[in-house]
């Protein structure tokens, strides 16, 4: 709640808590099942006045009222989805911390997997070029592995040389990435 207070008092007129003592206390465990449902739901809802706090965490006066409103809706038998829908009807998608998947948010939800795929593609391309780097066609993979084995024996803990193996430092004429 402190976060809310900070925001509220700094911005000229948001909702200061009505005098201490007048905020209704959270009715605890009158109905534990309903309360659990509420707090689960409220995790994913934004406390609209705090700008960046969930409805579950916030003790801003409006958040308390909204929780009470949700309780009331739940008591009348509304489903979680219906409760959320009625909040969205008043406050817009802004109230949802988990943005719904719809055309406007395709990029948001599709972005992370796309980044990963792009990254994997680029990495595979690099790997492919690195594997085939300076591999003359007449040298067999076995011979290369042997050579690698030899190089490997001294490539760790080699404080002096910046590049582990001398062979490796010669630039190749292949374009990177």
């Amino acid at each position, binding site marked *: 709640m402190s976060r809310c207070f900070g925001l509220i008092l700094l911005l000229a007129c948001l909702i200061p808590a009505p005098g201490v003592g007048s905020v209704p206390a959270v009715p605890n465990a009158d109905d534990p099942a309903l309360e659990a449902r509420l707090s689960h739901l409220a995790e994913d809802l934004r406390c609209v006045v705090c700008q*960046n*706090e969930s409805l579950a965490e916030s003790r801003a006066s409006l958040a308390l009222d909204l929780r009470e409103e949700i309780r009331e809706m739940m008591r009348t038998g509304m489903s979680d989805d219906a409760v959320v829908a009625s909040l969205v009807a008043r406050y817009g998608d802004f109230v949802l911390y988990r943005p719904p998947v719809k055309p406007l948010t395709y990029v948001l939800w599709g972005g992370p997997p796309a980044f990963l795929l792009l990254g994997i593609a680029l990495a595979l391309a690099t790997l492919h070029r690195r594997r085939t780097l300076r591999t003359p066609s007449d040298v067999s993979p076995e011979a290369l*592995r042997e050579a690698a084995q030899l190089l490997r024996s001294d490539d760790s803990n080699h404080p002096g040389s*910046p590049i582990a193996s001398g062979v490796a430092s010669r630039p*190749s004429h292949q374009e990177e990435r």
Partner: protein
Amino acid sequence: MMAELGQFAIALALALALVQGSVPLVGAHRGDRRLMALARPLAQAQFVLLVFAFAALAWSFLTHDFSVRNVAQNSFSQLPAMYRFTATWGSHEGSLLLWTVILAGWSAAVSVFARQLPEEMVARVLGVMGLVSVGFLALLLLTSSPFERLFPIPADGRDLNPLLQDLGMVSHPPLLYMGYVGFSVAFAFAVAALLSGRLDAAWARWSRPWTTTAWTFLTLGVGLGSWWAYRELGWGGWWFWDPTENASLMPWLAGTALIHALAATEKRGVLGNWTVLLAIATFSLSLLGTFLVRSGVLSSVHAFATDPTRGLFILVFLGLVIGGSLTLYALRAPRMMGGGSFAWFSRESLLLANNVFLVAALGAVLLGTLYPLFLDALGLGKISVGPPYFNAVFVPLVAPVLFLVGVGPLARWKQADLPDLIWRLKWAFAVALVTAALLPLTLDGVNLQATLGLFLALWILFTVLKGFAVRLQHHRGSRIRQLARLPRAFWGMQFAHAGLALLVIGVTLVSNYETERDVRMPIGSHLDLAGYRFVFQGVEEVPGPNYLAGRGTMEVTGPWGRSFTLYPEKRNYNASGMIMTQAAVNYGPFRDVYVSLGDPLGDGAWTVRVYHKPFVAWLWAGTLFLALGGGLAAADRRYRVTVRRRSAPAPATDPLRSAAGEGAA
């Protein structure tokens, strides 16, 4: 008078920065040693001037000089001395000043400790840092002067934001800025490398200790920020996916990718182009973080003033620095592929995989943080992107990295043997998996999240131990001496990876097994939670230095009869009238007990929230391990050995003083 002197010092520093940002670069371009030699004394003089300016501001705060606007707005006659001092960076202007002081500090450190680098390199690095400094000093002077006078002089100040009056906030901003700004060194090295066309292993070796040191500070800074949120925001959350937090997480992720990419570039001369791009990106994200927090484009917990002029200034500066360096990258990045070949399964390829996942995770955080802004800017409405989104996309991208932590350090460079590695790690894998599957069953039944987290943590811990075993198996002599002889870089890596495991354990257990109760408590009533009994003894009024507190007394008896008393407070700050919840925490290695006061209900009864947070301390212990690992790695001997070898012509002043070693101490 002090304020005017401070202002003058900033102006003078700007003049020096202008010279530092131009003359040495020209010198390096023409090969003129006299011009290049200006870089070091300029950087040092700038540092002295800015430290003076900072001291002048601190002095104004400590002596209650309310004629300075900054002091009047962020201090108060009753504010304790410690917070008066930290209030120096509690405001926008003050934190920018701190930023420039730290930037000058890093430049001065480069000028002192990088004695053995080629002169052109030093001139270019300091020149680039001078240019960055020009931008920030101009921002400070033109839009946000910390020394502006106020007339008429107010009788008293408006007090520091109570949220910032906390131990966590004392050291969080300086450490965070040490990290943010420290990446400017890596950035300057990258730009210098592009300018000189030398993007090789030597470049990577020079910039590596600086990068690791900056990363270490950033790790501590982010960790402390989290600790502050935990203590101060009143409900024991430790990460909110708030834009401000994301702004610090993004450079951290990029920096983590960077220190791993640098390893491949240093050891094998490969991935040079990618590494240099990451170095640019890491500092760019630090600047972006500053922009996001300072410009107010994103609504955030930390209510900073919104001011388009400042924001515009930072954005233009951002455009010049980032746009300029990326243009340079596009023009100058080598077209040749440096370094040797490596197989599809090798240390290099695993480091590459690490980078793919880390950068994808970074992209996800960036996308989620800026998406509301994108939609808003396009006029497509307002949405919120909060913790449910970030948890959903971040965890799947980071879990593979954690798994790779177990594999990478054991794989050989160039070509590793996968079947052999699988064979060697089979027990680590099996034991970690079985333990992680069974442990949640003993607690509250099947819990896949907990199993995944525990598996990854145990897997990392076992493979870290395996790493030691592999290192020791070919050596003779006493184990202790062998361990002591292992390079510090190795120790650093092991510590950091183990720290990651501790962090994952903390996060997993506290997220899945935390319990809380939100109750009304009349005086003398009790509550049982997680084996603890809480007895509420009421609330009494206790005056603080600059607030009046309602202090609750909660007697707590633990499962083994150990008892302690917690004093959660509800504070009303005198100057601002802000009401703050000050939670009371009993810290422990395996659980924290956390109590925060709600509201009075009459007759001495209050609403109270009580939390039992298992293993939450591991989160911060893990952070400390990460930082310790970073410090050890940066202090590795080989950075000094190279230094000594390179310094053959000019006798080194003090070859044992490694820059990074000093910085990380």
